[in-house]
């Protein structure tokens, strides 16, 4: 007599045909298994394999989304080769990032970095934002390059995203890249200033007031003529006061 499929097998069979409008109750055994596999590497690997196998088949966009949501929680380096090709596909790029952004394995960062150099321009903002959320220091040269190129090409939104990312990554290289940026577009210039302020705040939080002070002083000096110059001056001046307080307290 043939062995009866488990509830999990049945749910995965349903997932292969799943689409919007279907009753999601059929997927509940998968939901439960994803939660239950915490601390059980074997179960986790089994689930991850099942998901990646399905992703390699022709399944609906709804099913791809469902799988990416689950890999967001339990994915490891093992699923990266399956997710990485989706980064360049406009229909799936975001959900691939949805999973990859949250997977700590270095392979996930590698995939996002590699994609930044290959995906269409309209998807680059997503790669940059995910690398920023990961605070991926290795991506700084590539993001700085995007900042410069997009500024030059008048791609304001992309350049702003690149500046924002450098402000979130906050490594010494990111700070240097922001200092070296020379945008002419007002919105990009404002984003670079914002990113430098954010970087200075990070330095203050890391108890490095001298480095933070250098950024604030440079912003005060350069504020004249910038859009919202008064706002920059005030923000940087507040920063200088905070640096002085921190230095005095140390």
């Amino acid at each position, binding site marked *: 007599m043939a062995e009866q499929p488990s509830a999990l097998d049945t749910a995965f069979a349903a997932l292969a045909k799943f689409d919007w409008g279907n009753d999601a109750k059929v997927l509940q055994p998968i939901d439960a298994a994803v939660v239950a596999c*915490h601390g059980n590497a074997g179960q986790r690997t089994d689930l991850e394999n099942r998901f990646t196998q399905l992703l390699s088949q022709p399944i609906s966009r709804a099913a791809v989304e469902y799988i990416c949501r689950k890999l*967001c929680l339990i994915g490891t380096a093992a699923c990266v080769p399956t997710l990485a090709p989706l980064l360049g596909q406009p229909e799936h790029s975001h959900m691939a990032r949805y999973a990859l952004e949250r997977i700590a394995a270095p392979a996930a960062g590698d995939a996002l970095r590699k994609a930044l150099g290959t995906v269409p321009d309209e998807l680059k903002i997503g790669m940059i934002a995910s690398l920023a959320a990961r605070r991926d220091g290795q991506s700084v040269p590539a993001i700085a390059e995007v900042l410069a190129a997009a500024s030059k090409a008048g791609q304001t939104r992309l350049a702003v995203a690149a500046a924002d990312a450098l402000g979130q990554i906050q490594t010494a290289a990111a700070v240097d890249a922001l200092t070296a940026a020379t945008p002419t577009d007002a919105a990009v210039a404002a984003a670079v200033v914002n990113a430098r302020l954010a970087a200075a*705040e990070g330095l203050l939080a890391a108890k490095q007031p001298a480095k933070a002070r250098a950024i604030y002083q440079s912003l005060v000096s350069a504020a004249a003529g910038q859009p919202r110059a008064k706002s920059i001056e005030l923000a940087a001046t507040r920063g200088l006061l905070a640096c002085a307080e921190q230095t005095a307290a140390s």
Partner: protein
Amino acid sequence: MSLSADQHPVVPQVPSSPRRASASRRDFLQAAGGTAAAATAAPYVLTSKALGDAVTPPASDRIVMAGIGIGNMGSGDQRAFLGRNEVQYVAVCDVRQKWREEAKARVDAKYGNTDCVATLDFQELLDRDDIDAVHIATPDHWHAIMTIAACRAGKDVYLQKPETLTLREGPLMVAAARRYGRVVSGGSQRVLGDYRGIVDPCWAGEIGNVTSIDIRVGGPSQACYLPALETPPDIDWDRWLGPAPWEPYNPGRCAGNYGTGGNSWRSYYDYSGGSLTDWGAHHFGGAIFAADLRELQPSKVTYHPAAADGKTPAYVSLTYPNRVELCHNRPDGLRPQAGPSLDHRGSVVLHGDGKPKAAKTVPLYRDGERSIYGDFLACVKSRQRPFRDIELAVNTMTAPHMIGIAYRLERSLIWDRASQQFRGDAEANRLLDRARREPWVI
């Protein structure tokens, strides 16, 4: 997620000031004494409305406002601000044409002209130098992006609750507000409006030190697999979705009603934390204010599994650094049976130790204002922090967000406030945030 050695903690230390960060249009006009403006402006006839009267300030002293997200709650907010004499309301933004037009009509009717600008692009409003403040009442998945953008554009913000959708958004929003010296008020009008019956006696010391709190409210949001329907022409669906994953249009996905049973955006994970954060923003807000926990964040999240007999459902409790315990849907039989308590309609119950405790003055809205809208406007003028300052709102919202994560993972968690991470649980940390759909990123 591991950080390299040269990276810094995730929580920025933002130098803050309660004072105004940028010169406004009014400041400029006052400083210039009207001369520069008169020299460059087209001929202009000062109307009696522009000059003001006994109850209405002159136009140059009014707070110029715009609204973003003018559906259910947004229309209520708009009416509240429109009713204030110190406000000059100039623009509305919504991705639904009908709501946009209705909102514009309300403004035009108030001023007797057709000047109100209606747009579906919020950045268009933020780029205007003449706008001082915006109110935001979009679904939750837009809150952080819009609030941060508004702060960067030099606008003060009144933001509907729940202020955040994820735990990571909170510190970023606070940082933006502090960096640019903006007034950012959360928008739970009920915290002070509805819960005074427990707030006042609690602050008066009537139950002694609060030891535990019970909150009864619905659970977290759910996944949405509603069928794909044709998108109607009066909604910009891509903008409605914004940073959320692309999903097909269905009215049940985006309806603005207050239900969480599957027929509104409040039901669904991509746009809301469900009842837990929606009505929860009020209940948690009231309870946390009453117990004076607004400056704190929970340090421990305990998942209590359902009993094997199926009669006692799972529930989650939080422990604050001062040992106050806050429980979500703790079964009645497990609640403290002795000692003094304060009960708000069964939905919020505070339990105390009954020990003598000195009374404290309840902090109220600024300048004697009687509504959260008035409080916000008073702070826009004075540059003080509002009653539901964004930092206090973010602290408050950490509670239901952590509870939601514990329910999803079915396990207990330890929260490290300094790093804004769960300690020793990499999977839980994956739920601190989610990737946003390009180009709507933060």
